[in-house]
């Protein structure tokens, strides 16, 4: 299949079942809310090394937040419900509670819940105060600039992680431009994030290594410097650089929508080829085929 002048490989992205949460951070100003959100989503690119994947879903105006202050919506994903709970306590406690003027609210209505504020309240050293409004239990934890307000419970739900596209370009600059265009087009889809820096990852991996102590290693099939030495190379002629965009979402539809937008934008920006990372279908619970996503758009 061709989209503009880009070859779309007939393959699939292999995605995984994860658990996700939505965290609403508000603050006195949009800048402080963003500072907390950036801190909370730092070092959260891959569950392999970071125990969770997180990113900024959206910037929220005053009328879209519980306390009518500026805010940021953050999504956090981990491999199981317990993992989401632990990471939320760590990151809300260390990155949001510490940030001046912030408050932190649950942003998901879900049957499953994990205790976050109910854990962080102990920081209040018995000076914390519980409030219950419209069925929502909150904790007021005294801090040095006033109070940190945090929801007792946060909803979590099954999610989809590891949706991806691989963008192959003629050289580093052209590939970077195509990937940046794709990432820009993919941002802002409700319920999805791109957890890597700027939404783009260059160190794509395969789930194996020649070192016994390592579970993942460089994706040599797409490393241009290994074209001549790797028997697994997948690089067509004329490709000198590859970048990947990984998508996590609260549902499959959001991940698919992001992949569709990303492929269209990368193709418009001159990508040579677009493919996707998979492990033969043996690891992930979801196989997202590229061609069906583009039906009607391809030429």
């Amino acid at each position, binding site marked *: 299949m061709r989209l503009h002048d880009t070859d779309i490989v007939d393959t699939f992205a292999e995605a995984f079942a994860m658990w996700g949460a939505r965290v609403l951070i508000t603050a006195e100003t949009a800048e402080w809310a963003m500072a907390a959100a950036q801190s909370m989503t730092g070092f959260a690119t891959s569950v392999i090394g970071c125990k969770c994947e997180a990113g900024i879903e959206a910037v929220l105006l005053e009328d879209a937040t519980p*306390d*009518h202050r500026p805010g940021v919506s953050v999504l956090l994903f981990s491999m199981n419900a317990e993992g989401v709970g632990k990471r939320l306590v760590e990151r809300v406690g260390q990155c949001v509670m510490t940030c001046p003027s912030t408050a932190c609210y649950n942003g998901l209505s879900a049957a499953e819940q994990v205790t976050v504020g109910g854990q962080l309240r102990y920081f209040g050293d018995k000076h914390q105060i519980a*409030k*219950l409004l419209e069925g929502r239990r*909150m904790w*007021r934890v005294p801090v040095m600039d*006033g109070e940190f307000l945090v929801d007792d419970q946060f909803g979590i739900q099954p999610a989809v992680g590891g949706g991806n596209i691989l963008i192959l370009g003629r050289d580093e600059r052209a590939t970077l431009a195509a990937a940046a265009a794709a990432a820009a087009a993919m941002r802002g889809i409700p319920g999805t994030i791109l957890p890597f820096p700027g939404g783009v990852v260059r160190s794509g991996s395969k789930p194996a290594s020649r070192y016994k102590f390592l579970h993942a290693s460089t994706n040599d099939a797409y490393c241009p410097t290994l074209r001549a030495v790797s028997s697994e190379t997948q690089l067509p002629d004329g490709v000198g650089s590859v970048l990947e965009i990984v998508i996590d979402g609260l549902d499959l539809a959001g991940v698919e929508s992001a992949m569709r937008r990303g492929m269209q934008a990368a193709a418009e920006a001159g990508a040579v080829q677009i493919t996707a990372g998979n492990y033969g279908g043996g690891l992930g619970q979801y196989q997202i085929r590229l061609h069906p996503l583009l039906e009607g758009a391809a030429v």
Partner: protein
Amino acid sequence: MSLELTLTTTPTVPLEADVISPARLTGLSAAAAAKLTVVHGNVRADLGEFFKIKGTGNGEVHVTGDLSRIKMIGAGMTEGRLIVHGSVGMHLGARMAGGEIRVEGNAGDWVGPEMTNGLIVINGNAGHLVGSALRGDAAGMQGGEIVVLGNAGNEVGSGMRRGLIAIGGNTGDFTGVGMLAGTVVVLGQLGWRTGASMKRGTIVSMHPVEMLPTFTHACRYRPVFLRLYLARLRRLGLPVTPDQLDGEYHRWCGDALELNRGEVLLLDTGETAAPH
């Protein structure tokens, strides 16, 4: 179709009519509802002796007339809607556990005593002891919301343990007396001795008030949690202003004669200097 009750005979002495509640009337025909028992003074009577009833109970009940001598309306209510087109007497929604009561006129004393859930909205004024403990009981309101758009009398939230009481106008003396927890918001003026003997809980007012000597000023700040409460009250029809939403509040801690873990938050209106 909802059930509609119209007062035809004003009782000469207080009438206890806890049967006027969606839970008691749902599924009943008008004729069956008319045979429900009420207590007129110390005499049992039929509801139909005082009300003209039409419709069928479907979870919503409309009551029309001056019901200021009728007590216990909506008592023990667990679900449904009860709309009073007029004023009501004492003990409206006593020990209510769910549902919604709206009163277009005034309410007597003891609105929602010991209620545990649900919503009561009074468009007019309310009497004394809104959301309070009944005499001899340990705790007052234990959940739910009471909103009075007008004024309320003394001892609002007496012994309150949980929930929200909001008064659009002024309150009398001893607001939040003996409070155990929960939140009382008064947009108007507080009377004397606010928060006396409160253990925990929050009392908010938008006007300065002379605090008891057993309360200590802590700071002036913007309590974020209050923004959520005020936003909720605005949705319930109270005239919350942007200044109240965004304003700074003086925090007073007390009552030192008890646990000293209660708080009174007073909007900084600039009318009085900060205590420190």
